[in-house]
């Protein structure tokens, strides 16, 4: 063993070089983005004024708030249900051990596209195509749900044991019988888990799609921002955080009960 290797806590020059490169990048990028200290300090002054105007939150227009929150909730429920419904066949078709490759590859591509496009971008396109309102929000979040659930579902199906499948086939089961009795029982619990997670994230996202006109509380929030109604903005933000916190608590409970 050489003397250098025996040193406890030998300096790691590669890591140091990496950190130096990262620091250089930060300097370069801040210059590129025109992030100067003067600008930040002005910003912090503005932040103080903004915060002062946000307090106290103004719940006087609670009816508008409740209406928006309910619509967000509806968008979340509907898009999750539609997403689950569409993900079931898509996930099965994308699993390479169930579907032939000439089906699985294009379906995988479709799922990848669904997942890669941010739901707000999809929402914009649907607003243009379907008009303003909750329908566009439902459609956009359905696409996002499909991307997430179908991908994970396909991966879960690819990990199943093929023995029950062979047994069902050997016993003369048709495609549908094989799927129902040999494939789905093996992935049902994981599928429920993905769906629950997606419901959670759809709830978060449904509070937002309104910013581009796709229904829900986001529209109210954006309008309040544009009118400088900062005390109403803070009321809406508090309501959203409370709803999401509640949903997280509830889904945590359900997940614990399922185990």
């Amino acid at each position: 063993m050489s003397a250098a290797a025996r040193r406890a806590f030998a300096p790691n020059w590669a890591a140091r070089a990496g950190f130096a490169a990262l620091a250089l990048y930060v300097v370069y990028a801040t210059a590129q983005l025109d992030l100067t200290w003067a600008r930040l300090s002005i910003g912090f002054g503005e932040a103080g004024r903004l915060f002062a105007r946000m307090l106290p939150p103004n719940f006087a227009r609670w009816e508008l708030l409740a209406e928006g929150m309910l619509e967000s909730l509806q968008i979340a429920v509907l898009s999750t249900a539609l997403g689950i419904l569409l993900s079931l066949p898509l996930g099965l078709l994308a699993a390479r051990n169930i579907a032939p490759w000439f089906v699985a590859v294009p379906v995988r591509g479709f799922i990848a596209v669904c997942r890669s496009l941010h739901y707000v971008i999809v929402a914009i396109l649907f607003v243009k195509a379907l008009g303003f309102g909750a329908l566009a929000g439902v459609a956009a979040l359905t696409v996002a749900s499909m991307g997430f659930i179908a991908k994970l579902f396909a991966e879960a199906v690819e990990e199943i044991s093929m023995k029950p499948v062979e047994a069902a086939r050997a016993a003369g089961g048709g495609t549908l019988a094989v799927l129902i009795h040999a494939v789905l029982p093996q992935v049902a619990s994981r599928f429920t888990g993905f769906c629950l997670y997606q419901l959670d994230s759809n709830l978060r996202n449904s509070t937002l799609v309104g910013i581009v006109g796709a229904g829900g509380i986001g529209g109210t929030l954006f309008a309040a921002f544009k009118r400088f109604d900062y005390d109403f903005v803070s009321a809406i933000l508090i309501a959203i955080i409370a709803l999401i916190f509640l949903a997280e608590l509830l889904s945590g409970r359900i997940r614990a009960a399922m185990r």
Partner: protein
Amino acid sequence: MAVRDPAAPLRREWHRFTPAERLARWALGLVCVAALVWAVRAIDIIPEFLADAPEQMADLLVRMWPPDLAHYYPAVHVALIETLHIATLGTILSFFLAVPVALMAARNICRVKALNLLAQLILVSSRSVNSLVWALIFVAVFGPGPAAGTMAIACRSVGFVGKLLAEALEETAPGPQEALRAAGAPWGHIMAKGIWPQVQPAFWGIALFRWDINVRESAVLGLVGAGGIGVVLDDAINFFQWERVATVLLAVLAVVVVAEVVVTRIRARLI
């Protein structure tokens, strides 16, 4: 004493679930159906819009074809680079904010209960507010531009990074820390040599994972004026230049896919 019937256990009727479990499952199903029915009935959907939806979608796609590839350079390209800067710088900044909070949230490092709770509160509120909402706030603070986007990405990431980092910190083995403490090492040395080597893989994994998410998120921040490619996208949509919209979407798609591939590669080599 009566002779026990040896076949009695065999005649017992078996159920997969207890009655209480069956009731719970049934109730859960009912709640799901009720929620669905309520949502379908109450949601404000205009039937005319639904009826001509396929037609409108087809029209939109026709207008997008062919994509205006000439528009890519320089407008889209510059905005794309800006988006990547926002995502990367935002991720780095979020680590500066998240590491102290994570240290405060980890129960084996910070022994003060009140501080643990405070850190948890910071992390939860950061996660609950969406990046676009953060962007709205920071546009009001810094004015439109990439500064607002970078801050929004950073603030949104703190909750995610801090939570995962705190979990990694709590899972570290206490042995090396105790050894260093016994040898008289100060706090900084315990952190650098007792804890950092243990959380390093998790740290880089979280950084890559979050950077990948941030690349996606930063692409839309421009819609509220926070810089990046979203601004170009918003302009093209507002002027109904659908060929340009198609170009921007293709560019975003390409960057997202490349980012995912890069992250997967680096992660495979690193961890």
